[in-house]
């Protein structure tokens, strides 16, 4: 299989205007991915599927990821002149990354038996919208519905975008990292941390000694 750089170059040649970034993966798995832009996503996907050398005809896994607002602290050592003396000073810069939602597609080729190539698309957390790749790979149909249900990304061009796992009246997006489940902690005999905090709200105002004693 070609390297990601080669694939990136060929996509950029085949799909004019497409913005492709390689996202490096530091873990030993070394599965790097391609970040593609929203407007050209379907063209890029079609190229990946139909190009005779690549033929990624099998889209295995489609998933959403929620990234909250993050602050990345970078510490750089610089030399500064303080009171006429040169000193090593740690400069801490904070980079604020606004939260975003991501859809990740794992592609394999059954024709050439290679893979995976991972493509990812990003969108903001409010009004999340991406273009659906279901017209390219049918296997994305249910999985994109699942992302819509659990993360709230609207897939433009999806044939049947409804809630799939939760009921239709449900309003939240439970897999988002800032989701809090409803309160049903009346009976929690073994609570910890967060559960303990939430179970405490059900305790009577005046604590009694007898409850804690083993029966």
């Amino acid at each position: 299989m070609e390297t990601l750089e080669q694939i990136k170059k060929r996509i950029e040649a085949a799909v004019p205007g497409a913005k492709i970034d390689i996202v490096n993966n530091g873990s030993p798995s070394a599965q790097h991915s391609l970040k593609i832009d929203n407007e050209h996503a379907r063209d890029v996907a079609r190229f990946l599927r139909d190009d005779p050398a690549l033929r990624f005809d099998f889209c295995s896994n489609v998933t959403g990821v929620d990234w909250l607002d993050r602050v990345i602290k970078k510490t750089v050592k610089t030399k500064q002149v303080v009171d006429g003396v040169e000193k090593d000073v740690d400069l801490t810069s904070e980079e604020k990354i606004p939260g975003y939602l991501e859809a990740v597609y794992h592609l394999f080729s059954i024709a050439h038996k290679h893979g995976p190539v991972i493509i990812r698309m990003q969108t903001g957390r409010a009004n999340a919208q991406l273009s659906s790749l279901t017209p390219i790979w049918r296997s994305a149909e249910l999985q994109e519905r699942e992302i819509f249900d659990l993360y709230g990304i609207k897939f433009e061009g999806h044939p049947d975008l409804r809630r799939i796992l939760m009921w239709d009246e449900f309003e939240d997006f439970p897999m988002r990292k800032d989701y809090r489940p409803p309160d049903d902690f009346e009976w929690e005999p073994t609570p910890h941390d967060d559960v303990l905090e939430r179970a405490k709200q059900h305790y009577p105002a005046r604590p009694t000694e007898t409850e804690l004693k083993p029966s």
Partner: protein
Amino acid sequence: MIGAGIAKGMAVTLRNFVGSYLEEDRLTTVQYPEERNPLPENYRNFPILIFDGNDPHAGLRCVACKICEKECPPQCIYITKSEDKKPDYMGKPQFYPAVFDIDISVCMSCQICVEVCPFEAIKMDKEFELSKRERFNALLERKEQLAKSNEYYHHIHPVEAAQVDKNLAEAAAAAEAKKKAAAAATTAKASSVGDAVSVPGKPAASPTAQSLGSTSSPGVSPPAAN
């Protein structure tokens, strides 16, 4: 010929029907409750706490380190550490669980509490006939119900329990030897300094700190810190 396949299938059914009276291989029904298949050595159902000797309170191996509470995937263990210390089976003063509850209506029998316990204090029971007509208090097992003797443990897991006993004995012997060496060193020092009283009574190290990150698995866990 049409119908040959069905006839062939009927022959199989007939062979099984007759065979179920004659062949042991096809006679599989176990007449529970009169007849029971023996449970294998490794079978696990719900956790129990092991105590040495005869007194469930005095001999309890648990020192309320709360590792199992933290590692339990469905969080079904609740422990409150005691304020005072009691001597454990080795005679060392240790904390003990003032409250140790396991909600067996939540427990998923995954054995992770056993794997992470550095004191061989929590083990898996084989009792499965636990149907109850009520839920809340009946299925919340307290320390008194959980405490089971080492003999009971030997009875349900003979191979594993023998290995655990061996490990504990080796650890105790090693600790004894170390203590003697330390005592010898301190007496040698004491002749010059004159302060050797408080050393042997103090636990060697904080057990929780020592066991963090250990690669314990049943039967080969690091011994209790003493």
